[in-house]
């Protein structure tokens, strides 16, 4: 076991975002975290990455509370790719990837030829070597996201955490990016929006709802029509293939979901009165 959350809770501005979530990220697996907007996926990623401290509970990295390890030590073992991190600085593609060497460098341990080699390998790996001299703002969304993955790889982590890495990408780039991640010999935990992609690429899925973990298991066990209705408020059919994979077909527009409608009515009448 490499990375695990033990009963973590987190709140922001008085609102409870995560409640009592426990989960292990197993060595070598691709764990998908799914759930509607606001269900706590991003916060869970931030806690697992150690950039936020849980309000209660703890996150263990290789058995040690992540807050006890220094930031640099954590950044050498795990790398986080955020949703669409952007910059107005005029940096090149290569410089963006070079940032991944930060946890290994300091005023007294300067850049070395070895760092150059690692950066070049990372650029090759994400198929961006031919664009390494291009300025950031001239690159497409898919290219930028590949560079973020490249930067994460340059950190030489054992664990890769991805927060909705395929947002705003076209379908070809979405699948290409997840495939790229899958091919790495790394433990991966990724917050994902697309349930079919989650089913396609992940070994296990964690389902978040209202800040709680409501299901955890293999995609075919977790993704049932009932759960999709409960969690996402969408009617869907789940087809199971003989090879163990599954895919989801959403029904066009069904009758309004009973769990959603009364709440909306309440808020409307509340506002009127």
């Amino acid at each position, binding site marked *: 076991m490499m990375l695990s959350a033990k009963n973590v809770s987190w709140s922001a501005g008085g609102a409870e975002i995560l409640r009592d979530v426990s989960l292990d990220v197993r060595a070598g697996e691709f764990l998908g975290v799914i759930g509607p907007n606001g269900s706590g996926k991003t916060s869970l990623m*931030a806690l697992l*990455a150690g*950039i936020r401290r849980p309000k209660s509970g703890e996150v263990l990295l290789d058995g040690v509370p992540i807050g006890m390890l*220094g*930031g*640099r*030590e*954590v*950044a*050498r073992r795990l*790398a*986080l790719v*955020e949703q669409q*991190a*952007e*910059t*107005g*600085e*005029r*940096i090149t593609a290569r*410089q*963006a990837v070079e*940032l*991944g060497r*930060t*946890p290994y*460098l*300091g*005023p007294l341990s300067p850049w070395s030829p070895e760092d150059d080699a690692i950066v070049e390998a990372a650029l090759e790996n994400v198929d961006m070597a031919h664009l390494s001299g291009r300025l950031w*703002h001239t690159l497409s969304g898919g290219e930028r996201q590949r560079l973020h993955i490249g930067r994460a790889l340059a*950190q030489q982590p054992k664990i890769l955490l991805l927060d909705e890495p395929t947002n705003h990408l076209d379908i070809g780039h979405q699948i290409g990016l997840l495939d790229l991640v899958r091919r790495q010999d790394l433990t991966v935990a990724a917050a994902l929006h697309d349930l079919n992609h989650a089913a396609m690429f992940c070994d296990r899925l964690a389902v978040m709802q209202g800040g709680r973990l409501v299901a955890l298991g293999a995609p075919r066990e977790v993704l049932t029509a009932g759960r999709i209705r409960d969690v996402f408020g969408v009617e869907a059919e789940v087809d199971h293939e003989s090879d163990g994979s599954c895919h989801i077909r959403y029904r066009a527009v069904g009758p309004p979901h009973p769990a959603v409608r009364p709440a909306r009515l309440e808020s409307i009448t509340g506002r009127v009165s």
Partner: protein
Amino acid sequence: MTADVNRAISSIGRTGAVFLALVVLVAALWLGAAVGETAIPFEVVAKTVANRLWAAGYPLEPIDEGIVWSYRLSRAVVAACCGASLAVSGVVLQSLLRNPLADPYILGISAGASTGAVGVAILGLGAGFLTLPMGAFVGALVAFVLVSLLAAKAGRGTAAIILAGVAGSQLFNALTSFIVTKAATAEQARGIMFWLLGNLSGVRWPDAWLAVPAALSGLAVCLWHARSLDAFTFGAEQAASLGISVRRTYLALVGISAMMTAVMVSIVGSIGFVGLVIPHAARLLVGVRHGVLLPAAALIGAVFMIVADILSRILIPGQVLPIGVITALVGAPAFALILGQRRNRA
């Protein structure tokens, strides 16, 4: 242009670049000591420095030697420190706050310094113990602490720091105006106005012995954190995920920028535009890596300020213009050019 400069730097090597920078700086100081209402030959400047530093014993006109050593050289050294400090603070704050309009005064420091200065000069605070620069320094620190507390209360985000700085600056500027209109004579008001626009006239060696260590230590601390600053390229969250202690970096770098700025403002008043424009000019020249950007900004700022001081002394014969007028007159069109260039390249 960026690539050209970087190629030039890598071809002459790091040592070569440092050597070149020092040569440029010494040349600028030399120019600052030689040019003025009475032009003094470069040779006399060199001999004066030799006489003073190594007691070389060259026979010189005492009046020339006095002008070079006691007036112009000390002034040029302080101008260089001031330009370098403001430019470095500007780079650091623009990078940390991820805002291209951030400058060293965004933390309320110049507003606080002016309130402190008028407090001493007009209200007579400190009962004669506080000099005007000391009053300015105290005012700058008070404003900075207030702005920091406000920002911390508002959530420590970059927007919180900027908004707290705006609020603090407005408050202290209003206090300054209030004191000036309420209590100052016309003569005092004119003097304060002159000081607020930046003024190197009264600067002597004791000021330089304060400015030099402040500028050098500030530059050293910022250089030490150069890689941390690079890591903020994609924001504080990514910096944290790259192993940077975000809070500690903020405290160290915002603190040292405030210290440098407060010292410079207390010596020469609040000189505008240097801390805003020079960082952008330096970025265009050498790129965004702070290991190169910080020293480049320091050098450009230092040379720019020395030249601005020369211009302020010789532009109108017999009268010294406030240096802030020169920096803004040169700085505003330069900034317009930079903005135009950014757009063309985007």
